[in-house]
């Protein structure tokens, strides 16, 4: 179990993470989702003691990271797949970790086989590895000590679809055996594929958390009308706010039946009317990532 309570870290005027609290439970894959620069990596570095927080506490299984003896045997960590000595072979990288943890060298071969870095690939120097191969090596390094907690920063980055599928079954099996898995990503669909629980972070703050089912299930209606402007106006008249949502459709926060009544009363023809499933999370995520883009649009509009 990973537990963060009120963790804050600032760099001068910049607040990297602000009052971050969440729990990653054993037996679950927790996805840590947010755009680049949202504070995911800083939070993860705080968890493993590489960055001291200004405020708040972080524990793993009830212990501070520094108090875990031989931590590689309990917590598997992959923070940056590129942070390996380019001049070492893949096998050598794992051998150094195995020696530190006091593991037999046979464990290195097991892990190389598990992540599919076999034969000549394991003998190549890391500088000749593709990003996907580095990720596999990093995952092997994290799993080496047979830990019960995994902390992986952007582990799917650089993996092809088959690789993502492989990782998904690997981590799922791992959680089913009682392990705690926390993985970060800046891609919603990636996390949706792998995680059970989601923690959304933006601008250093947790903006939503819960099970995937909870977060994907949102109230609201998607509606498409013959004349979208007229429908939007009619909805606005009765106090229902509608936002354009691609394909000429509109999204409201009210129930489909209410939208239907408004349309009927106004005599408008609808081509589609349904509950807006699964769109809430996506919109929230777009809101987090789209801030800068929207600002520039607004500025242009003002100037015009």
């Amino acid at each position, binding site marked *: 179990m990973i537990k963060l309570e009120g963790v804050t870290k600032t760099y001068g005027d910049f607040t990297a993470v602000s009052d971050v609290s969440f729990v990653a439970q054993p037996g679950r894959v927790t996805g840590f989702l947010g755009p680049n620069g949202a504070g995911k990596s800083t939070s993860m570095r705080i968890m493993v003691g590489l960055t001291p927080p200004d405020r708040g506490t972080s524990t793993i299984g009830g212990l501070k*990271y520094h108090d875990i*003896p*031989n931590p*590689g045997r309990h917590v598997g960590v992959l923070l940056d797949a590129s942070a390996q000595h380019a*001049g070492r072979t893949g096998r*050598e990288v794992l051998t150094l*970790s195995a020696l530190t943890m006091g593991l037999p060298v046979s464990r290195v071969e097991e892990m190389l086989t598990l992540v599919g870095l076999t034969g000549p690939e394991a003998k190549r120097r890391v500088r000749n590895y593709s990003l996907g191969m580095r990720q596999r090596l990093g995952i092997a390094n994290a799993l080496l000590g047979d*830990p*019960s907690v995994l902390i992986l920063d952007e582990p799917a980055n650089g993996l092809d679809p088959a690789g993502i599928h492989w990782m998904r079954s690997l981590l799922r099996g791992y959680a089913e055996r009682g392990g*705690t898995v926390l993985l970060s990503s800046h891609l919603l669909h990636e996390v949706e594929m792998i995680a059970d629980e989601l923690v959304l972070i933006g601008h250093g703050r947790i903006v939503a958390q819960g099970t995937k089912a909870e977060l994907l299930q949102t109230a609201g209606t998607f509606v498409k009308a013959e004349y979208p402007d007229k429908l939007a106006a009619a909805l606005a008249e009765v106090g229902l706010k509608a936002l354009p949502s691609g394909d000429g459709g509109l999204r409201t926060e009210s129930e489909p039946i209410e939208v239907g009544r408004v349309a009927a009363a106004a005599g408008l023809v609808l081509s589609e009317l349904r509950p807006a499933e699964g769109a809430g999370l996506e919109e929230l995520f777009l809101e987090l990532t789209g801030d800068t883009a929207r600002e520039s649009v607004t500025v242009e509009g003002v100037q015009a």
Partner: protein
Amino acid sequence: MSTATVANGGALDVSRTSKVPMSRLITVELRKMVDTRAGLWVLITIGVVTLLGVAIFGLAASDGEKTFNNFMGFTGGIQGLLLPVLGILLVTQEWGQRTAMVTFTLEPHRGKVIAAKIYASLLIGFAAFLVAVGGAALAAVVFGGGSGFDDLIAVDFLKFGLLQASGVLQGLAYGLLFLNSAVAIVTYLVLPLVFSIISSVVPAMQDAAPWVDLGTAQTPLFNLGALSGEEWAHVLVTALIWIVVPFVVGLWRVLRAELK
């Protein structure tokens, strides 16, 4: 899932896990010195250049100079230049290649890792010392006819060992201070040059040299015989300035540094 860490309400059971012993950390640090081309070649170069230097000195020097101590001083000069580079690389490769992130997550007590690096590089320094002494003894027999061992006392070995150790530690200190191979190596090589240029222009510096210049203070360590009290004081004061202070500042920096 390891049996030792089966989740019990999410708590880690660490009762059956022991800390990483220092011996294992030292083994790992020794291995890091030879498992990259750069590290391996520094070691090979130290060995080859030491023996090559002995042979050249043996062929070129006049007969009277071919004493054991002169051979040892010659090898010491060569090694004194290269051993600190080894110390520098052992620290800076972790930052240049960002492996410190992995090293310090596997052993979060950074002081222990630095201690292991000190022990490991002193061990390598000792091995280099043995190669130098062995090579010098062999050369004194081969080239000097075995007559060059007169006047040799135990303190001469101690002095020579001290030289090697101080070189290794100086390298580590510069590595910790700068955390960058190029800057640390250049500073280590250029500082003595800068000092000798300054003291050639400023006469007052010449008098102060034994107290502030490591090279000047350590010169008696190359020669035969015991050092006077003042000479030992020179060695200690310059070591404080050029080894202890950079080491302490560098250690403070590494213990506090945030790793990205």
